[in-house]
């Protein structure tokens, strides 16, 4: 069995850290180990958190929004899963653009937090409902063009049913729903500022057949580096 995914939690409310620990403990099939916790980015990175596979980051630390720090963390090669109550689409899209692997809204924690952490560790796009919602309503012309089916899959996943239900309802296989959602997410990794984490997500998406290399466009020529791929 592969070694457990290591995670460091940057969060200023101890009760939330306890919550995440209990969700991790409750998901026996997903091996995740918390290696560091702290209420500032610096405190966590200084210790064993600096080499954790995934950082879980609360956007509001001690009364300050740290949205602007996500880019710097991702540029340094950290895989960041943002965990926040600020699930407005603008913020969700901003952290994705900065290179965050995923965004978990606080009320999505029990259902999606651990899965999002594990997916992030292997550069797989997980896409929580709040991320799906943000992509669905995104009307910015600079953002990727999603197909009608991708949009529909994202909207219905956002509404709160399982991917199996979305698949039945769309009259397609569940794997195809996953593909639509993952593809949409991969398209988002092709826009905006370059980040190691985005490159890794794209490389994995290409490898898994979610997106073709030629669809990535010129992005691939910038900083595509297989060495940034994680262990699997």
């Amino acid at each position, binding site marked *: 069995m592969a070694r457990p995914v290591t995670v460091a939690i940057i969060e200023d409310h101890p009760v939330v850290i306890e919550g995440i620990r209990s969700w991790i403990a409750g998901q026996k099939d997903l091996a995740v180990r918390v290696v560091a916790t702290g209420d500032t980015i610096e405190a966590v990175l200084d210790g064993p958190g600096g080499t954790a596979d995934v950082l879980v980051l609360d956007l509001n630390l001690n009364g300050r929004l740290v949205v602007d720090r996500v880019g710097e963390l991702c540029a340094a090669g950290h895989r960041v899963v943002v965990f926040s109550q600020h*699930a407005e*689409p603008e913020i969700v899209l901003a952290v994705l653009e900065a290179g965050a692997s995923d965004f978990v809204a606080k*009320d999505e924690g029990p259902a999606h937090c651990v899965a999002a952490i594990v997916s992030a560790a292997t550069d797989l796009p997980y896409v929580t*409902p*709040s991320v799906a*919602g*943000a992509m*669905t*309503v995104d*009307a910015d012309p600079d953002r990727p063009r999603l197909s*009608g089916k991708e949009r*529909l899959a994202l*909207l*219905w996943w*956002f*509404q*709160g*049913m*399982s991917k*199996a*239900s979305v698949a*039945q*309802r*769309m*009259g397609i296989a569940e794997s195809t729903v996953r593909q639509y959602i993952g593809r949409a997410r991969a398209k988002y990794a092709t826009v905006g500022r370059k980040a190691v984490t985005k490159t890794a997500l794209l490389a994995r998406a290409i490898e898994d057949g979610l997106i073709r290399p030629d669809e990535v466009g010129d992005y691939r020529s910038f900083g595509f580096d297989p060495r940034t791929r994680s262990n699997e």
Partner: protein
Amino acid sequence: MSRDSSELVASTYMRNTTIAAVVIALGWHVGEDLPAMIIAWAGYRWPAAVAAAWLAYAGIAGVAALVLLRGDRPIRYAWALATAALVLGVVVAAAAHGQLMTLASWAWGAVGWLGVMLFWRRSMAHLVCFLGVNAVLGLGVLVVAGTLDRISIARYLMVVTGSGALQLAFAGGARALRAAADWTAAASAAHAETLTAQRTAEEVHRMRQRRFQALQHTTAHILAALADGRALPSDPSVQRSCAMEAARLRRLFAETDDLPDPLVHELEACADVAERRGVAVDLAVIGSLPGVPVNVRRALAEPPIELLSAAKTSARITVAGLGDQVVIGVVADADLARVDSGHGPDVAVSWFREGERLWVETRWPDRSPSPSSKTIQS
């Protein structure tokens, strides 16, 4: 006329009379006082003092003009400046020794215009008092100079009453105009207010009638059934109907609240009713919502109300604004077999069952995403 526009008219009137007061005082000083001083120049005992007085007068008038034209408040220290103006009159009179109450002592008549400016936006009593002091000073100077002959007295009276009457008439007229503008503004504002109140009352009445009609079919029916014993409060289906009517009522109350996103506000009211029953409700709103007419909002909200009223422990409501389209989704654990409500203009309703959970979606305008909607799975 709205309150704003009537106030604008009133303030324009006031500004124009203010400009008139400034123009008269300065015009008088340059067009009347200056030539008078130049003509009498050779006869002054201390011409330099008269020139200084003329400049000081101009200075006071300039300061007053700046304050009056820049703001809409009375001049502070008006009496200090007025005292200085009165002193100017005495200085000019003293310098014009032997030519009292002639053109040479121009200041007697002119300071009144300074007074008009200095006591602008104050009660007339200030100006009357000021002109009175000026008249007394003039008489005092005549007495001190010992020139109480008939001609001097006549000239004195002419100057004091002539200029004073003009100044009082102008100041009084401007105040009357201002009061008239105020009345007009107040009257038109009151009229506009009455009109708005009347229209609001009509709209409220119309909405109330519509809500009453909406409730007659459903709420009144269940209340009547409860009253005459046809419906038993212990019956779960009656309980569900009651929960639904409670949500409907709350939504109708919320309908009249004037808020930016009425659809979300109304759904919040429905969510609140479900939460009171102990259902954990999660409401997520994304995208910007187009304006939705009230009858469409009602049709969009009915299926969510039906499902929320049947929810047992948890429900998730989502509202997505996709350009000009609104999509409402509700997922809840409910025993409801299907959703019946939600027939409205151009509103698409679809539902889907996955085990314990029922999933309902309403869309407006109706551009159904796939032909497979409106299927029931179990």
